């Protein structure tokens, strides 16, 4: 047992922190919330030069060959600083290609992803908004060498700038886990239309409509009808990554609040001297520490390829609530200024809600935990 970061992880962390502080100031974050694209192509290019899109892609596909645990160290820094854009959804979409793609798919996609030439995003949710298999109704019908896709996907992150969707579709009628297939779908295919949904974090979640969209059979990821276990893995990876991002956000909320409470003077003393506030900050700190090792455990297990659905769901359910609460208290302890659209703290408070929903809300993960602890 050694729960410290490795030397390589410490270097990655420091490099990421320095880079993001300089290259992604809060002014840019705010600007991108209003920007149509929602990300900075110039910044994207710089991150590609650092190898971030290809961090976990093996070197023989032009990636950096780092592990999943290393990735979560980088993501923690991303969450700490806030980085708008399609980096995380692209990385999350990479895993099913890495783990289930054909050699041809790997050769086609991985080097381009590593070079920053492709934006990918998972397209899972539909109108019902559930991550369960029963929520997938969008149809893919075999027709010659192609599949023809009809239906609507919801809350597809950065779909409006994506090059490819990792799309879950029904290839057999029904609502069960069997009969679901994953496709790599060219976002510029004929029949695809996309609208950005206004959301709490301005993170460009989109409604994407598919009308008679043809996808070649070679773009099936994994086996036809057997896509569900791949989706489960994708959700697991996505959940851990979003947890790591939330942990970074939680740390910033704690640090900013403590720093502010030492500066802000009322009744002739810094408000941080009041015990009523000290105990709230202590609770924020406790939340931060309890999140950390829960996430690190899940990330470590995922990195080691161990079965970890129990630990991942425990982490996501716990961290969802912790981030909302810690950021809520950060707003409260900042007082009036904490509610200002010009202040940084609400950026985190709003993202806490977005992070909560992504890859499974609290109750959804708690139900998985209930199954895993043996409730029949």
């Amino acid at each position, binding site marked *: *047992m*050694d*729960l*410290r*970061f*490795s030397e390589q*992880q410490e270097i990655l962390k420091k490099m990421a922190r320095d880079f993001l502080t300089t290259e992604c100031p809060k002014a840019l974050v705010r600007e991108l919330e209003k920007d149509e694209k929602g990300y900075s192509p110039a910044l994207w290019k710089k991150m590609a030069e650092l190898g971030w899109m290809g961090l976990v892609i093996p070197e023989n596909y032009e990636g950096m060959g780092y592990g999943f*645990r290393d990735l979560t160290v980088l993501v923690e820094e991303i969450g700490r600083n806030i980085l708008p854009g399609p980096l995380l959804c692209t990385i999350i979409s990479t895993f099913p290609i890495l783990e289930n793609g054909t050699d041809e798919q790997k050769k086609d996609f991985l080097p381009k992803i590593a070079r920053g030439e492709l934006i990918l995003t998972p397209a899972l949710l539909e109108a019902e908004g559930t991550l369960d298999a029963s929520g997938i109704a969008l149809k893919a019908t075999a027709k010659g060498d192609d599949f023809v896709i009809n239906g609507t996907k919801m809350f597809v992150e950065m779909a409006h700038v994506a090059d490819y969707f990792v799309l879950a579709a029904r290839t057999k009628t029904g609502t069960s886990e069997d009969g679901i297939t994953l496709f790599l779908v060219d976002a510029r295919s004929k029949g695809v239309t996309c609208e950005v949904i206004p959301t709490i974090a301005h993170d460009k979640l989109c409604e994407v409509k598919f009308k008679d969209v043809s996808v070649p059979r070679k773009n099936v990821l994994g086996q036809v009808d057997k896509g569900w276990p791949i989706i489960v893995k994708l959700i697991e990876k996505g959940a851990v990554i979003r947890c790591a991002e939330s942990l970074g956000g939680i740390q910033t909320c704690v640090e900013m609040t*403590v720093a502010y*409470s*030492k500066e802000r003077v009322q009744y002739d*003393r*810094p408000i*941080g*001297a009041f*015990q009523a506030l*000290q*105990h709230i*900050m*202590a*609770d924020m*700190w*406790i939340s931060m*520490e*309890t*999140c*950390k*090792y*829960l996430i*690190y*455990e899940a*990330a*470590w*297990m995922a990195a080691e390829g161990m079965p970890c659905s129990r*630990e991942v*769901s*425990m*982490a996501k*359910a*716990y961290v969802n609530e912790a981030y909302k609460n810690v950021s809520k208290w950060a707003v409260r302890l900042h007082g009036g200024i904490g509610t200002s659209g010009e202040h940084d703290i609400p950026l985190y408070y709003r993202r806490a809600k977005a992070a909560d929903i992504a890859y499974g809300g609290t*109750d959804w993960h*708690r*139900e998985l*935990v*209930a199954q895993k*602890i*043996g*409730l*029949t």
Partner: protein
Amino acid sequence: MDFALTDEQIAHRKEFFKACSELESQKPASFVGFESIFENDECWQFHRSCAKEYARRGWLSLAWPAEYGGTGAMMDRVMFGEARGYHGVPGLDPFGVQMLAPTLLAAANEDVKKRFLPSIANAEIFWCELWSEPNAGSDLAALTCTAIKKGNEYVINGQKTWNSGAHKADWAFGVFKSDPNGRKHHNLAFLLLDMKTPGITVRPIPYMNGATIYNEVYFDDVHVPAENIVGQENGGWAVVNTLAGFERSALDEIMAMLRGLETLVEFCNQTKRNGQPLSRDPLVRNRLAQLACELEAARTLAYRIADLQNRGEMALMDASALKVFASEFGERFAFTATDILGPYGQVKHSKWAPLNGLWENMYHECFVFTISMGTNEIQRNIIAWYGMGLPRMK
């Protein structure tokens, strides 16, 4: 970053769990939780016999220096705690083994170490703690019970309270005012004393559930050899702080709660309400799952602390964080479990009580964890002042 245990650690862990599992099968029916050892003779005797078994295996001196008979590593101590907690067996004197022994190793002179450590390792002497007073709780240094040095002795007069197990213990360690005119924090002595010394009166304070856990202890000219001092004359406060770092590990309690969750899950699977097992009730599922998530958060933080301690660091801030989190988790658990049991949630250990009355008992005894060992409010102060550098209360 690696949570894995070595093969050797896994083998040791199995040995700890096997021994504790065997002891669990000998548990008297009246043993509900660790505090039961203070409540009746049967449980106290079970405590002592478990201790003897651990002593035989060298497990009460784990991670001590070899010259004092120690074996094993810090991680062994951690895993041994997990095994005891999970199987709900006593036998580890929290005062003698957990608090006093490491304090003596850190702060006592050779003579004191040689006189007292062997009887702790051999489970011959059981200890209690003389700490709080009626007007000195969280502000412990405001205590007034005096120990005045006269020749080769200290003479103690005054009162201690909220003492666990003085009615059972053989010896006590305590902190007393040795210089009534001295400055606060520079006027205390840390002393070791035989509880059979003339002049000591132990009066039980009935706990809210009728059990005897706590006592008041009165001192009327109690003579203690001066050689029983730990640390310097008037230097007791430093020893108090050393000892505070060694108070009960949370991991055994966390494992006890993990076991409690497992038995509650099983109960919900087996018990019908409204024509279906309780386990099918979405609210029950959600609430138990929430507890499971929190418990795992506590367990992983406990490992973080163990990992740091294994490297010789104290991990004081995380220890305070875990003390608060795990103890308040215990309250939430007690509330949730007694809710789920419905009308049976109020039934005391009896033929009507589900799960041996564990949860009715925990509804009372959860305060043992939140209030003692530095109240959670004091722990929050510690985190605020020392962990986050916020201004200290005057």
